[in-house]
């Protein structure tokens, strides 16, 4: 029985047993449903083995929404625990686990796949390509991310969750102070997902550099594609750092090395430094594509071209460079002295300049426009003021001497939520409403959508503005409880109310999807928003090959150019189209990775060796495989095109 003891959760509670039951029931329900409706074949052929960037994108979206739910439940539990002083809803251990997983899930398993969804679905369409450069690698990226996310999530019910914060600073995250396997989950699950992300980075840089439609020079790329390109460059440079860091963490925890330990020369500060060398660029990996989405949405609904295209591109390039030069601002209080702090203080504040340029460009895009308030536009217009608040508090935090007072407090928590929620989450929701018709052939309900946007914003203000105040009043972050005498009660109660309002907002999104699926009209055009870029020039739903004829581009708003200036996008006759074949290897290999990760976490070395061999066998098979893809004939294209045009 000793063998099985290791899988038990060290601090069980009702919530954990309930989750076990819920996970078990869901798995049974999914299996039963698939069997009953005879969908196994469909699932395998159309989804598990797909290499189509649009389907992979949709799978990213589903995972992101699922993880949004998980992270959201964590959040509401935290706010509930802190709503009143001396609350006993959660104990310290559970609270620690929950804020740790909330951070990781929201950043790495919710925001990242949401961004990946947009890049996958939109970039090839926007540059007029038929797929990404390496479709099969793309599938592998997704499945590795997915298995990493799932592996991370089962920590809640098998063996215990990580509890050292999403930053996992050593020595706290070391063996001595974190004995459960929780932090092993952190190291391995993120490692697996991170490999997937790195490959996405390589894939999309190649795609964007090499596969643009004829005539689309770099400076004629739509802004979202630009933002995706830069974000992927950051991924390629930042994620290897994370990989090494996690490997060293794993070695320390499971192989007794002394990178970050307190004895034999280990250095706890090294973890913090390397973590943020990855961690800060990571933030920009999320926010830059979000900026790209806002640029698309704002120019579409202001009915005007984006103001200051060149400075938009330039500011993103500068932001991406600066993002690697500011990491020490996450620990001004580590005692590196006034000179170092001054340097990082200045580089950090410098980021405000290019970011400000973007805000002013968006404002000037509105000028002389003809603004239509759709749901995506509403999110974007709520984004500008709320994000500005987050941005300026960022400048405040960058003042290192004052940061000694903000650091580790609720002020900081308020700040980063204030940039991430209006900055990234609103962009995702704006993009979700914006691209939904292209994906599924019907719009999301506008009325519910607008209600949601307002609820989220009101909830957001109530939830996070009080944190600025309680932070300045001395409330440290990550405290599972506080006393009545501290005077934090009122602010935390308001915060809880705000969080509850936001929760209603998120439930409304789910309701909107349900409602719109049932009631919204299927009779929409290929271009329901009267948009400006290539993704709206093809059919809805998008055919497998995206474009029957590759578009000919001569401006950065190719579709608008075609609509207003009579430019002909699609010239010439149909030719047969080369498409990649589906493959089961990415899915199977990722499943092996899952087992590998699970065994590794529990130090079960025999399965680790077996699965490692399995992974290499998959790679070898791939190496020897001869797969030249397949062709879609002209006749098939003609049929598809006629059908889609008729519909």
């Amino acid at each position, binding site marked *: 029985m000793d063998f099985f003891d290791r899988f038990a959760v060290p601090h069980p509670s009702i919530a954990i047993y309930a989750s076990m039951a819920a996970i078990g029931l869901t798995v049974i329900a999914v299996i039963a449903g698939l069997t009953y409706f005879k969908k196994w074949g469909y699932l395998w052929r159309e989804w598990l083995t797909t290499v189509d960037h649009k389907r992979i994108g949709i799978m990213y979206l589903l995972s992101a929404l699922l993880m949004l739910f998980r992270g959201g439940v964590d959040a509401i539990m935290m706010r509930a625990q802190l709503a009143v002083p001396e609350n006993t809803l959660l104990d310290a251990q559970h609270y620690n686990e929950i804020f740790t997983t909330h951070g990781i899930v929201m950043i790495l398993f919710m925001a990242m796949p949401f961004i990946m969804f947009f890049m996958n679905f939109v970039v090839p369409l926007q540059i007029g390509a038929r797929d990404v450069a390496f479709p099969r690698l793309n599938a592998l990226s997704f499945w590795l991310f997915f298995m990493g996310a799932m592996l991370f999530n089962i920590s809640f019910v098998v063996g215990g969750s990580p509890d050292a914060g999403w930053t996992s600073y050593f020595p706290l995250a070391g063996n*001595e102070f974190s004995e459960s396997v929780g932090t092993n989950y952190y190291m391995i699950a993120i490692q697996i997902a991170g490999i997937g992300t790195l490959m996405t980075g390589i894939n999309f840089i190649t795609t964007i550099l090499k596969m643009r439609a004829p005539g689309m020079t770099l400076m004629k790329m739509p802004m979202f594609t630009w933002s995706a390109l830069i974000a992927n460059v950051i991924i390629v440079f930042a994620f290897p750092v994370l990989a090494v860091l996690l490997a060293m963490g794993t070695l320390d925890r499971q192989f007794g090395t002394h990178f970050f330990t307190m*004895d034999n020369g280990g250095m706890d*500060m090294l973890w913090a430094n390397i973590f943020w060398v990855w961690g800060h660029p990571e933030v920009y990996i999320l926010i830059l594509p979000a900026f790209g989405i806002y640029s698309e949405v704002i120019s579409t609904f202001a009915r005007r071209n984006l103001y200051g295209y060149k400075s938009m591109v330039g500011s993103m390039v500068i932001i991406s460079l600066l993002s690697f030069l500011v990491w020490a601002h996450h620990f001004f*209080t580590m005692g590196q002295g006034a000179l170092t702090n001054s340097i990082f203080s200045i580089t950090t*504040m410098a980021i405000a300049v290019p970011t400000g*340029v973007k805000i002013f460009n968006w404002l000037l895009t509105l000028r002389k426009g003809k603004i239509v308030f759709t749901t995506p536009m509403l999110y974007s217009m709520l984004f500008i003021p709320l994000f*500005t608040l987050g941005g300026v508090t960022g400048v405040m935090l960058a003042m290192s001497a004052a940061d*000694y007072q903000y650091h580790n407090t609720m002020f900081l928590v308020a700040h980063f939520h204030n940039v991430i929620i209006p900055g990234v989450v609103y962009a995702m929701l704006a993009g979700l409403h914006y691209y939904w018709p292209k994906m599924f052939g019907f719009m999301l309900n506008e009325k519910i959508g607008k209600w949601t946007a307002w609820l989220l914003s009101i909830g957001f203000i109530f939830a996070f503005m009080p944190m600025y105040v309680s932070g300045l*009043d001395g409330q440290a972050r990550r405290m*599972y409880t506080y006393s009545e005498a501290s005077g934090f009660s009122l602010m935390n109660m308001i915060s809880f109310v705000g969080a509850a309002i936001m929760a209603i907002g998120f439930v409304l999104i789910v309701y909107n999807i349900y409602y719109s699926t049932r009631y919204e009209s299927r009779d929409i055009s290929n271009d329901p928003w009267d948009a400006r870029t290539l993704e709206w020039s093809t059919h809805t739903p998008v055919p497998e090959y995206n474009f029957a004829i590759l578009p000919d581009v001569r401006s950065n708003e190719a579709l608008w150019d075609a609509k207003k200036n009579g430019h002909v996008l699609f010239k010439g006759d149909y030719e047969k189209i080369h498409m990649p074949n589906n493959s089961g290897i990415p899915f199977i290999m990722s499943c092996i990775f899952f087992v590998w990760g699970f065994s590794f976490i529990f130090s079960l070395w025999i399965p680790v060796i077996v699965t490692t061999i399995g992974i290499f066998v998959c790679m070898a098979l791939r190496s020897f495989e001869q797969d030249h893809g397949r062709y879609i004939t002209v006749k098939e294209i003609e049929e598809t095109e006629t059908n889609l045009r008729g519909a």
Partner: protein
Amino acid sequence: MHKKGIKAALLSVFFTIITVLAGCEPLLVLDPKGPQAERQASDILLSIGLMAIIVIVVFALLVYMLVKYRASKQRADYEPPHIEGNLWVEVIMVGIPVIIVAFLSYVSVQSNYIVEAKPKGYEDTKPLVVYASSSNWKWHFSYPEEGIETVNYLYIPTDRALEFRLYSHGPITSFWIPQLGGQKYAMADMVTTLHLAADVPGEFMGRNANFSGKGFAENTFNVTAMSQKDFDDWVKEVKETAKPITEKKFEELLEPGHLGQQTYTGTHLEFSPPPSGHEHGEESSETSESDTHTGSHTEHEGMSH
């Protein structure tokens, strides 16, 4: 004079707003009781003021655009023009933020050197040196010159420079007394220095601000500032009444958990010296780097249970 006037006006406005927000109790960070906290509070208020201007400008521009250019206000056949951008607009767009950031950077750099030095106004006093070391989840305060040690409470004299030397017997923690000044990390690997001073007597909240595990929320300590005379009396009293700290006793204290307030004569520094690595000043020396591990090694031998 003029600048001071603006600053004072800003100060009072924000004090009022924030005070009202917080239910009439002044927020700790903005209620400084020492020169370092004062400098930080004034930096905070200055930046709030400047940032408020930016926020107002952005809000105003946004509202103006949204009101003026919304579709319902426009002719049905209005075609928005194609505008690429304008060099001068962009110069302004970059220029003004650059000026603001440059100004704040200047203030920030100045403040960095101020908070990292002996507190203003107390340059001539001989600083009281206190070693503050954390263990799960307590604070140990050693007064080497006085030869006494306390747990979870701190007595300090007013009107005198205080020099805290911080380190940790475990996870990274952060030593923070909001009303006296900002925090700094205490780590196992090196000793960091925090310069503080208290202008007035009183009771202040102190805590570990950096998450350090299960007992983190309760990882607090009380700070009492008193006149030098009262402080000396207290030291004397402790020396007469308290028990000496022994190696065995100290190891018991290090066990994870919470303890109440305790007082000892002697300090643990004598048998369990702090890590020999020190904060990197401008002249960060290679030698102190390479010496670090030997110190921290012996130091933690007693810890690994």
